[in-house]
């Protein structure tokens, strides 16, 4: 059956078409957002759809950068994401190193790791409501500090898990040798452990950064005015200002570009990253 060469070629052609359609299903909507952002508002949606715009304009971007500009929201997103990711990365790595390389009872370590992983099961809304109430009392609503603290909620367990996976792979001999040479803990981390796992740690950094950058639920409730992030701005277009498609698309394009660029950097580690390190890519 499959020895028939013309039939084999036909099957292959069908497969190529299928896979092309699959990829196009992803590229077209993204292209659609980008292209709509360059169309004048009156032509943002047309029938039949214009895949190649007849008129190109930067008006949507001009509006986006006026008044309370997109830059301002981007700055907020950037400060909050970076702050939270750095705190989570430092303390997550310390905990992960301890669990991966120091002497723990097998049962105790397993329970602790499973418990940390189990925290990811919880719907974020279950924590978002009490954190909102607590933050009102502590006057942390609408502050960078509050947002950074809140984002540790999803970043920290993720960092511990992935870093644990990377540290566990390191041969024990290196650490023993360093200990014999009288290398203190700080130097051991700074000179040996971190440099050896840098690619992995960069992946962890980028993945947690992207999660924070895209986060919406905490952002929309824990900010009121001063620390609103990009996703909150985007959701606001739909609710309060009616449907200014051109502008929504301009803002969406601006928010998506950095994330797409980052996702290209972590291709090699993506599988481990997506599965909490449970599967090595």
């Amino acid at each position, binding site marked *: 059956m499959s020895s028939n060469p013309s039939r084999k070629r036909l099957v*292959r052609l069908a*497969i*190529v078409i*299928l*896979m092309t359609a*699959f990829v196009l299903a992803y590229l077209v*909507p993204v292209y*659609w*957002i980008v292209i*709509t952002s360059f169309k004048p508002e009156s032509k943002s*949606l047309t029938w*039949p*759809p214009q895949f190649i715009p007849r008129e190109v304009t930067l008006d949507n971007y001009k509006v986006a950068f006026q008044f309370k500009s997109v830059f301002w929201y981007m700055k907020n997103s950037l400060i909050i994401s970076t702050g939270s990711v750095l705190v989570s990365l430092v*303390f*997550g790595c310390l905990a992960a190193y*301890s669990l991966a390389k*120091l002497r723990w009872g097998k049962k105790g370590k397993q329970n*602790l790791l*499973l418990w940390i992983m*189990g925290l990811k*099961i*919880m*719907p*974020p*809304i*279950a924590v978002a*409501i*009490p*954190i*909102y109430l607590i933050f009102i009392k502590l006057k942390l609503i609408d502050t960078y500090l509050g947002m950074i603290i809140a984002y540790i*909620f999803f970043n*920290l367990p993720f960092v511990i898990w992935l870093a644990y996976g990377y540290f566990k792979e390191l041969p024990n001999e290196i650490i023993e040798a360093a200990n014999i040479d009288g290398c203190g*803990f700080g130097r051991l981390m700074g000179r040996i452990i971190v440099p050896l796992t840098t690619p992995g740690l960069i992946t962890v950094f980028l993945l947690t950064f*992207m999660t924070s950058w*895209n*986060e*919406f639920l905490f952002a929309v*409730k824990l900010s009121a005015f001063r620390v609103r992030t990009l*996703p909150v701005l*985007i*959701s606001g*277009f*739909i609710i309060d200002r009616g449907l200014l*498609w051109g502008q929504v*698309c301009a803002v*969406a394009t601006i*928010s*998506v570009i950095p*994330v797409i660029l*980052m*996702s290209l950097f972590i*291709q090699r580690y*993506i*599988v481990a990253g*997506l*599965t*909490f390190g*449970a*599967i090595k*890519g």
Partner: protein
Amino acid sequence: MKEKRLKWVLVAPALIMIISLIVFPLFYALRAALYLYRYGKPFRFVGLQNFIELFNNPLALNAVLNTVIYVIIAVSAEMILGLVLAMIMNRELRGFSRPVRAALTIPMFIAPVVVGIIWRMIYNPQYGLFDWLLGIRNFAPTGGNHALYFVIIADIWQWTPFMYIIILASLQSVSPELIEASIIDGAGQWQRTTRIILPTISAALIIAFTLRFMEATKALDIIYTLTFGGPGTDTETVGFMIFRLAFNDIRIGTATAFSWLYTIIISIILGFFMNWLNRRYEIV
């Protein structure tokens, strides 16, 4: 420093953060669930009244059913599509797997609020790509009682690549000797797939399934920008309803009661599952 002390010193800050950010708030929420906590009304203890109210609220049942439908259809469709596409790719077009993967990682990292916007545009009844593609007009995918299924399509769109990428990676790690041996032994293609390939990648399949299941139960952002739970409450999932109760209706007591019940149920289901998974595949 003695190793015994050091190991705790290193874990302590992370543990303290987790406890104060997750464990403490959860108990704070439990306390709120026992109180009447509404806008403009005095704050007072009401015992289990919030929970009882929830059981009598038909909208809560509606949200639970919507979530069950959402999770089951979305996750199984993503799994099946991802598996089929990954198997095809692995057999026929191995050379292209890297560029294809690069294109397919994009949707996973687009903010769900943006995915909601994208699909809102696609589903636009006057000018949407969806109607255009089907050659019809004025059909509103998110406008009738079928809206939930079209929201699910958006979820499937965003997360099928997740399954695809994980499954393809594990397919590529199946040793070629194993496949060759089975060919020599005369196994047909179907037998090879069901007896050798699927069992070898089963750990990856189950892990991918569990992770997606876990995330799908939390669905909220994408609904917020795509339909805002509407029309009516047709696309309201549990996560979205709790959000609405807490922040739109300011019924914090009912919302926290619901979120506690929901967390317990999800934890029981996934807890059993993960425990079993860990015993079988020793992930930790």
